[in-house]
């Protein structure tokens, strides 16, 4: 018989199965050919039955976010967890933590399936990425709770056939208890759901094959296992203790057709001296295991004690202490100081247990075992050492004797091996272990971004279109950080990876370094770098860059109109409204551009504003209009504004003659240039030579160049954004707008970012907004469309507070210093920072610190390196003119 499990038909509901199984246990015994040596005999749904009739209900706890929460949130979480544990008074709980490896090839498979029409060389790209990711652990922690719900008496089981009513009563009492425990486990603080057949299968596979590699393929399990089925699990698995008092046991078994051996050592947690959690920053004490570079298995047996019983035991201990004190006094011998301390502690505990009715004074006793495994005894020893160092000096890690029976504790329904190393504590201290605390962020479907660099070091993946396609959320991602925070590196990497996936991107990079992406060999044939400053006159015509809505996007059978009473008229109304909006935006944009081309003293006058508004009203705002039509409208104004309007028109005419102005004012109507964004996978628009105003300077101080640069910037933003509408609505698209803080200064810039955010879900766009100040994003009223946020190194109290708000973290909880400490350079170091750190909120509840590194792609790293490097220009360094001087001063 092999390790593979038998396939069974789909099961009926567990409660019914439980009754059936219990009633038929005796009749099936005769047919049973095999039995395991385990205590576990039956599994029905999430209930496990032991030989002694103990029924344990198993649950899987949902991961709990711990990082970047306020201390009050974390304290609430611990208290809620403690309350749930206290509600299980009188029960024994078996906590099991195991891992489900996520093979790198499975990630590559998921990414491949999530990719449509990739660029040539995709297979090689996947292979390179797999090699990079394989260096880090990629597995999921699974936290199981097994709660005893009752015991089936052997008399009742034996007499099942004779007294059907007796067993029915017994099983219905257990079902009632299981229902109560189900409700407690599902409540906040525990958030655990009954283990499904797959979860039970995984628990048994990992427990019986303790320390062995996880099987790659598991058959689909059914909901009911008989003793014969359980025996199949144990077949071929051997546990042996090499020598008496050996520090490990040897577990061998078959995995995917090969015989595998592992050396497993079971340690137990001894004396604890834990600091305040979370205030000390120590973190949940069982979550520390996540810091280890290898997966460790945990089995903790927990007895939640009845208050009276716990109090009686405390009183007994107090009596022992008092007896010893009296004995020392009787002999006139100085008593040890520990006796006085123990007496005081006993009184505090006794008072706490007696007078605290919140449930948080409930006492527990527990035995916490941690198993580590290795390919050979040396590796296992080294891992035990790492485990011990992780807990030193707060918790003692002990390796007890009797390794074989200790290891058996990891198997569900096995009894506690030995009573030693019992820990007694209030339920709040046990809740401080918070085993389900997790550092999960991102998904398992997208390209790799880097790795987490908070508590653990694990690969981070992100599929930028999963939010729109699966979660039905928007696709706006601000990338915030001070100068040098690494925004270009991060966004460039996202663009590079997803371009290779075949997703078209349009990038607006005013300063220009990102155009180097287009020269990478793998992207060169499919990309186009456009310098907008050298583009055809009229390229940035404000009337042309806001396209009319596509009627194809307003079909009556679309999802949003389908449920209307008259889908046809609803779709037509929506289309008309969108056309009117586009016309209104063109007028606003044209007004903003004209205002921007004038000196601030002129723009700020009431007459100018009135004249511009009136001219905008009169101009035909179709895509075929031109700013010259606007000048004509100005010249045709009559009445009190006539003279002023003509002067403004003259000034604007003069501006139109300048090279920057020519980009806005077409000489003749330009042809359609939209083939560029529609036919290239990557289009990078730059504006080399554009001189943007200094941050914080007032408009009156701007030079003429700086003044003209602002309208050009947000016109370029609109020009880039237009590409979103060039491709079919449901196709994945990307838009990266850098220097967004400049665009957010004017209303049409803010409107651009709002419009992109609003359309991101419908048009399946991932929009990356690079900005230096998160405050701009918050004040621009686009927070509603923000899906995920990257925050790099941020300095300045106001900027830090805004960045935290954008991440959804309340400022004032000490995370400001974390933002300032991201991508920190070592003082005096001449090395450039190879990698950059960000705080990433993934839009799906995960927030973690991540590190983005491009070390495995040096060409991409060099292309995205925007740090000044004078050596880049010269291919060969000049000969060193310096000579080493000898002691005498002569050249040697």
């Amino acid at each position, binding site marked *: *018989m092999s390790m593979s499990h038998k396939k069974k038909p789909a099961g009926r509901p567990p409660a019914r199965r439980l009754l059936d199984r219990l009633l038929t246990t005796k009749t099936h015994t005769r047919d049973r050919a095999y039995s395991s040596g385990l205590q576990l005999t039956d599994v029905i749904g999430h209930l496990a039955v032991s030989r002694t009739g103990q029924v344990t209900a198993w649950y899987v706890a949902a991961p709990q976010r711990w990082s970047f929460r306020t201390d009050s949130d974390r304290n609430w979480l611990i208290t809620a967890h403690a309350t749930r544990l206290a509600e299980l008074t009188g029960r024994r709980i078996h906590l099991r933590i195991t891992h489900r490896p996520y093979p790198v090839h499975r990630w590559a498979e998921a990414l491949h399936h999530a990719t449509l029409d990739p660029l040539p060389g995709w297979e090689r790209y996947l292979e390179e990425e797999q090699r990079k990711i394989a260096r880090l652990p990629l597995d999921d922690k699974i936290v199981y709770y097994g709660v005893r719900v009752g015991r089936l008496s052997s008399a009742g089981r034996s007499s099942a056939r004779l007294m059907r009513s007796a067993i029915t009563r017994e099983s219905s009492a257990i079902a009632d208890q299981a229902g109560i425990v189900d409700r407690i486990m599902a409540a906040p603080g525990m958030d655990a759901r009954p283990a499904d057949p797959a979860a039970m299968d995984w628990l048994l596979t990992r427990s019986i094959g303790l320390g062995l590699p996880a099987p790659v393929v598991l058959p689909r399990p059914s909901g009911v296992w008989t003793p014969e089925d359980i025996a199949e699990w144990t077949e071929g698995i051997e546990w*042996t203790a090499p020598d008496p008092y050996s520090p490990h046991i040897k577990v061998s078994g078959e995995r995917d057709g090969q015989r595998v051996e592992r050396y497993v050592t079971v340690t137990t947690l001894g004396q604890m001296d834990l600091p305040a959690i979370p205030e000390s920053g120590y973190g949940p004490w069982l979550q520390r295991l996540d810091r280890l570079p290898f997966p460790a298995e945990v089995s903790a047996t927990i007895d939640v004690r009845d208050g009276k019983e716990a109090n009686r035991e405390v009183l007994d201990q107090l009596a022992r202490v008092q007896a010893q004190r009296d004995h020392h006094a009787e002999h006139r011998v100085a008593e040890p100081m520990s006796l006085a301390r123990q007496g005081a502690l006993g009184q505090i*505990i006794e008072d706490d247990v007696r007078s605290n009715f919140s449930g948080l004074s409930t006492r527990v006793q527990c035995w916490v075992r941690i198993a580590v495994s290795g390919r050979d005894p040396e590796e296992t020893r080294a891992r035990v050492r790492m485990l011990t160092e992780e807990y030193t000096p707060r918790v003692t890690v002990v390796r007890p004797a009797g390794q074989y029976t200790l290891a058996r504790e990891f198997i569900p329904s096995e009894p506690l091996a030995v009573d030693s190393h019992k820990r007694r504590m209030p339920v709040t201290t046990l809740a401080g272990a918070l085993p389900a605390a997790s550092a999960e962020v991102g998904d398992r479907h997208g390209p790799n971004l880097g790795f987490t660099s908070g508590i653990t070091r694990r690969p981070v993946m992100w599929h930028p279109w999963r939010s729109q396609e699966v979660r039905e959320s928007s696709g706006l991602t601000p990338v915030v950080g001070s100068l040098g925070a690494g925004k270009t590196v991060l966004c460039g990497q996202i663009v590079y990876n997803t371009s290779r996936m075949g997703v078209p991107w349009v990038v607006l990079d005013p300063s220009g370094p990102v155009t180097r992406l287009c020269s990478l060999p793998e992207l060169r044939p499919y990309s186009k770098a456009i310098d907008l400053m050298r583009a055809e006159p009229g390229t940035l015509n404000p009337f042309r860059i806001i396209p009319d809505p596509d009627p194809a996007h307003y079909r009556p059978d679309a999802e949003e109109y389908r449920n209307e009473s008259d889908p046809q008229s609803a779709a037509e109304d929506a289309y008309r409204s969108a056309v009117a909006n586009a016309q209104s935006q063109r007028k606003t944009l044209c007004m903003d551009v004209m205002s921007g081309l004038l000196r601030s003293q002129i723009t700020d006058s009431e007459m100018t504003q009135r004249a511009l508004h009136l001219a905008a009203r009169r101009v035909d705002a179709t895509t075929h209009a031109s700013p010259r039509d606007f000048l004509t409208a100005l010249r045709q104004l009559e009445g009190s504004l006539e003279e002023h309007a003509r002067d403004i028109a003259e000034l604007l005419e003069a501006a139109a003659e300048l090279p920057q102005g020519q980009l806005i004012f077409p000489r003749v109507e330009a042809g359609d240039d939209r083939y560029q964004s529609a036919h290239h996978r990557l289009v990078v628009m730059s504006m080399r030579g554009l001189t943007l105003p200094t941050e914080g300077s007032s408009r009156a101080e701007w030079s003429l160049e700086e003044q003209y640069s602002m309208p050009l910037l947000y016109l370029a933003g609109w020009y880039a954004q237009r590409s979103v509408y060039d491709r079919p609505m449901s196709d994945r698209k990307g838009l990266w707008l850098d220097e967004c803080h400049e665009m957010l200064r004017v209303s049409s810039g803010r409107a651009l970012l709002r419009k992109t955010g609003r359309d991101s879900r419908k048009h399946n766009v991932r929009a990356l907004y690079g900005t230096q100040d998160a405050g701009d994003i918050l004040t621009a009223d686009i927070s509603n469309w923000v899906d995920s946020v990257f925050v790099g190194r941020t300095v300045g109290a106001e900027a830090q507070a805004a960045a935290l708000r954008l991440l959804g973290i309340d400022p004032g909880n000490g995370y400001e210093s974390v933002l300032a400490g991201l991508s920190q350079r070592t003082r005096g170091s001449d090395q450039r920072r190879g990698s950059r750190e960000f705080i990433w909120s993934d839009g799906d509840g995960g927030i973690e610190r991540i590190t983005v590194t491009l070390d495995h792609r040096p060409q991409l790293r060099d292309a995205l390196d925007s740090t000044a490097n004078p050596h880049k220009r010269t291919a060969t360094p000049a000969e060193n003119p310096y000579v080493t001087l000898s002691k005498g001063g002569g050249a040697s």
Partner: protein
Amino acid sequence: MQMHTDDELYQVDDVFLGPRGQTWPFRVRYRAYAIGGAVFGAIIAVEMWVGIVGLWPAVFGLLTAIWLTQRAMDHVDHERTIRSAATTLWHEITAPRRGRSGATRARMSLTSVRRTR
């Protein structure tokens, strides 16, 4: 939130200083007296069973009992009770192992399959 444990309360050293008015120069835990007494009784019983009776065998038995008790107490502390030490010893004796030659000396594993009929 403070993370206290109750462990210290359960680490009381129950030492016997001597009878009232007579303080002995050594401090020994009550449980050591219990183990020592049992060991001494067992040694005397064995001696009597093999026919060695007298003062010197009794003295030898006492010294042996003290030595054995000291060794046993190395495995008994606040974390490990006498019972758990004995249980662990039993577990070590009965744990399945493979012979040095590779042949099975004891039962391979309690988790392996066995026929029930």
